[in-house]
Each structure stands twice: as structure tokens, then as C-alpha cells.
């Protein structure tokens, strides 16, 4: 069984690979990486843990031609994957890139999976017009049908049983991204709540998060990171809405959760997923939240925006 994975012409080729077993996984990706490297593309393989090790062994002879990233670490927060991958592509300065990205694996929580699905959908917009081939493996034998359905909606091209065909569920980048802009679960009644409207209250916002983090036994470093992330979101609320916002904080199993609700509308679905140069101003709040937190979920409508941050309290939670 051989699969021709190379699309005609340049520009983005974003494909989901539904693989049945480890042998098919290894065979298809091995061929994809070797073909890409041979054609002069810059290659990034970003898959989780043990799978990464197997691919590294299989592709060892390609040496520096392939960059490997453990997505179980770098992509624990799926919102962090796109900035990293875009930074990799930017660093190639126009050279074609080939990327193997596997953000979805068994054991991901439903909340993480929602952000993974959104990430996959946003790849189409983020890489629009770029010279890139992106192959996203899905373990069809193990993953739930809902996850495979999300993948069919987010990828223009599907590969199943060695056959490459356009996805009948994919329409365009904007529609795909909008489909994953889903309402967040309700805030529990026991959440601690603080409203804020002015810059004079930022210090109080930070103090509030710091105290909640201490009460939830968050490690000091994680607490500082969460305070910084919430502060940036609160600054965005104050800067971009006239009406202030509401901060809710509550513990869930193994994590502390913060949600900022305001009356703003995030019109750019890629907000928080595009890397920035040190010299450019503004537009970093959400990116920073993605870099600092374990999970960032966003739901935005013209009536308002909700941004939820997760910070895990123990090393055990991955």
C-alpha cells in the first residue's frame, strides 16, 4: 500500500490521516517524511511521547533534516501548538514546510479535545497562502467517533485506508473555524467572583487571583503564571470594552479555573495563536495566556466574549 501524499502545486495541503494500527502509522509517516526531506522541505514531526520515539528511531538516518517535538509536552495546551508551528514555518524563510502534527490522542479530556478541534480548524486560516503540507494522524482504531467527525470538518483532505480524497464535510477556513467557536460549560455556583472596570482595579484583580491560587494549593510558579495571564485578559477587557468584565475563579479536580467574561467580540479567530516579534506592539494577551496556562478556551459572539483558563495544580495532571 503506497499513498501519494503530495498535492499538486504550492500552497497549503492540510490532511487528516485516519490510521488503523501502529504499522500503518509508521509506514505512512515514514514515507511522508522521507519524501518531504528529499524534495527539500523543512520537516517538523510533532507527535506525542512514545510515538515520537518510534519515529525518531525509524528516521534517525535523516539527522538534522527533521525537527522532532514531543507534543505531549509542547502541546499539552493545544492552543500553544499553532504559535510554535507558525514560528517554525516563519524561521524557514519561504522554504516549503512539511509538518506531521498529532494533537489528538486517547486520554485527552473533553475540554482539551474541544481546543484540539479548534486548533485543527484554525490551521487552515493560519497557513492560508503558505507553502506547507500538514499531515495530522488520527488513531481511528482508538479515538471516539466525535473526534473523527471533528477531524473531517477541520481538514480539507482525508486519507483513509490508503485512499486520499477531499473531505465532504469541509467547506472553507472561516466556516471551519466558526464551527468550533462553541459555548463554554457553565460556571459553577460556588465560583468566587470579582467585577472590574478600570485600570485602578488591576492590582486588586491580581491579588484576588493570587489568593485563590494559594487557597487551591497551586505551586507558586503556576500561581504567578495564572496571575499574569488573568492580568493580560483583564487589561484587554478594559482597553477594548467600555463596560468592564467579570472574573470567576473556582477549583475543579486537579486544577484551578479562571474565566473572564466581557462585552467585547473577538472578530479574529486566530487571536492568541500568532507569534509576535519583540518590536511589535499590542495583541499579546491571549498569546501569553496560551503560553502560560494549561488550557485556554474561548467563546465569542457579538454579545460578549468568555475566556476560560486552566492551571493544573499537580504534576500528575497531563
Amino acid at each position, binding site marked *: 500500500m503506497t499513498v501519494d501524499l503530495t498535492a499538486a502545486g504550492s500552497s497549503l495541503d492540510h490532511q487528516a490521516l485516519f490510521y488503523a494500527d501502529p504499522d500503518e502509522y509508521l509506514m505512512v509517516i515514514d514515507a511522508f517524511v522521507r519524501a518531504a526531506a528529499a524534495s527539500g522541505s523543512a520537516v517538523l514531526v510533532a507527535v506525542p511521547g512514545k510515538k515520537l520515539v518510534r519515529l525518531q528511531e525509524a528516521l534517525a538516518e535523516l539527522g538534522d533534516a527533521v525537527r522532532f517535538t514531543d507534543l505531549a509536552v509542547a502541546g499539552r495546551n493545544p492552543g500553544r501548538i499553532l504559535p510554535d508551528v507558525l514560528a517554525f514555518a516563519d524561521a524557514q524563510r519561504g522554504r516549503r514546510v512539511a509538518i506531521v502534527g498529532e494533537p489528538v490522542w486517547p486520554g485527552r479530556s473533553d475540554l482539551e479535545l474541544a481546543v484540539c478541534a479548534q486548533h485543527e480548524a484554525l490551521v487552515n486560516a493560519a497557513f492560508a497562502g503558505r507553502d506547507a503540507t500538514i499531515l495530522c494522524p488520527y488513531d481511528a482504531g482508538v479515538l471516539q467517533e466525535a473526534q473523527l467527525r471533528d477531524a473531517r470538518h477541520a481538514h480539507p483532505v482525508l486519507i483513509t485506508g490508503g485512499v486520499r480524497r477531499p473531505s465532504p464535510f469541509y467547506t472553507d477556513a472561516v466556516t471551519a473555524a466558526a464551527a468550533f467557536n462553541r459555548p463554554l460549560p457553565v460556571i459553577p455556583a460556588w465560583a468566587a467572583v470579582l467585577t472590574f472596570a*478600570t*485600570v*485602578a482595579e*488591576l*492590582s486588586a484583580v*491580581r491579588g484576588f487571583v493570587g489568593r485563590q491560587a494559594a487557597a487551591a494549593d497551586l505551586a507558586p*510558579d503556576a500561581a*504567578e*503564571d495564572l*496571575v*499574569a495571564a488573568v*492580568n*493580560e485578559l483583564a*487589561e484587554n477587557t*478594559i*482597553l477594548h470594552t467600555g463596560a468592564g468584565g467579570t472574573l470567576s475563579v473556582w477549583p475543579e479536580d486537579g486544577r484551578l479555573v479562571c474565566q473572564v467574561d466581557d462585552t467585547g467580540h473577538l472578530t479574529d479567530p486566530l487571536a492568541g495563536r500568532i507569534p509576535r*516579534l*519583540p*518590536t511589535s*506592539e499590542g495583541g*499579546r*494577551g491571549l498569546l*501569553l495566556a496560551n*503560553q*502560560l496556562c494549561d488550557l485556554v478556551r474561548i467563546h465569542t459572539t457579538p454579545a460578549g466574549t468568555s475566556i476560560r483558563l486552566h492551571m493544573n495544580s499537580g504534576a500528575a495532571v497531563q
Partner: protein
Amino acid sequence: MATTLFDRLRPGDHVCLIGDDDVLQARGIAQYIRAGLRERQRVVFYGDRTGLLDQELAAAGVDTGDACGSGQLQIISPGESYLASGRFDPDATIAAWRTEEAITRAAGFDGLRVGGDMGWAARPVPGADLLGHYEAQVNRVFADGFVTAVCFYDRRLFPHAELRHLSCAHPATATAGPEPDTAPQLRMLRTVDPPGIRLSGEADLANRAALSAVMRALADDTPDGSGPLTVDVHELRYADASAARFLMYPAVHAGRPLRVVGCSRALRRMLTLQGSDGVPGLLVETDR
């Protein structure tokens, strides 16, 4: 009388004091003047000398005849000072501050304390739209650590958004009241040995324009040519992402070698996430 914010101010402070009550504003100005006279500072207040102000000065125990006669206190109306030319000129006003600072030092005072009733800027004065730029840039003078400044703003006279913009150009903002008691949020003092600046307090959106203006000009405002600059952040309790970027300005924009010393873990992490590892000539030292 209990101590107020005005007794806790130190040279280098620049406070935006927002109120909405004529009596409280006059009382605040009187307390501010009194605190300066007690600290052997020269005190200059730019504003109209109203009957209400005289009353509050008398109530605060300030002998204005004495203080004005000795030259320690001056009360000057805006028309005689920064609006004398008929328009507000930020650069000329900032240059005048530098001159006043030199005169005050030469006269042997321990500091210069200035206050301004900013109500004039709500009137249709040519150049009043440059006030935000001025309030940010004038921090470069105050960072010498000789001048203490409080700008009295009446929220009834300024649109909300404009007042927010103006307050962010001050390192500290307080709300007028019977006892305005918050400590200044951010302090910025340039240092001579080593050349650079010492920051303390918290830097966020509330003082973003102030920190940006001072850091962007730090290389220009440091006399000693092209040597390395030191930003001392031992006492900087918080810096948001923008503030972290401003700290790197002398290296990023002026190409000066730069040491950031006394970095907390949180600030170091913030600097890293803002790209500090890729800035040539930047050394970040963590020791707390």
C-alpha cells in the same frame, strides 16, 4: 491632621489625582502645599488662587504671606505660565521644568514640589490635545528624582476615555477623597552609578504610557555616551507583558548594552516570553 498621600510622596513621584468636588480638591492642594513647605522644598502651584483655596490653605495652617514672601511658595495662574503664549507647547513646558529644577537646586532647596490644576486643558486651548503626550514625556524630567508633581484633574470636566488616557501617562493615579491614602503605584528614578534606572512598585496598563516614555528615552537621557545601562527591578513587584517589553527598549531600540538586575522568576519568565533571549546586548540577572 492624619498623614495623607501627600505626606508620603517622594521626589520623582508624579501623581494623577482625580476628583469631582471643589472643596476636596482645594483641601488636597492645600495639604500638598503644606507637606512640601514642611520638607523644605520649593513649592510651585499652577492654578487660580481662589477664595476657596486661600480658605483651605489657612485651615491647613499655611502662612501664605510668609511662604510667598520668602520665595518658597509661588501660586501662578495657567495664563501667566504654560499658556502665556496663547497655546500649550509640551516641549517648551518640559524645557521650562528643567530650568526650574536647576534654579531650585541652585537656591539650595531640598526639592521642587509642583502641582497643577489641570482644568485649563478641558477648555478649547490650542495644543491641549497634546496633554497626554506631555504628561508621559514630562516623566523623563521627574525621573531625575528632584521634582515631586501632582496633577489635579476634575472628572466632571474631562470625558471618561480622555481621563483614562491621561491617567495612564502618570506612574501613579489616586482618587481624591478625605484621605487619599494609596501609595504611588510605580516609581521610576534614574541612577548615576551605575547609569540607568531603578523601578519600584507595579507596572501595568494603569501607568503604561509613563513607563514607555521613560524607557524609550532612557539611552538619550543618560549622559554617559554608549556604555551599558542598568535597569534595577529589585523592587518592581509586578510587570505586565508590555512593561517587560519596555524594559528591553534601550537594547532593542537604541542598541545599548543593557543589564536588568534583581529580576523575580515571574519577571524573568515574562521577559523570556517577550523575546528577551533574542535581544543582542541584553543580560537578565535573577537574584531573588
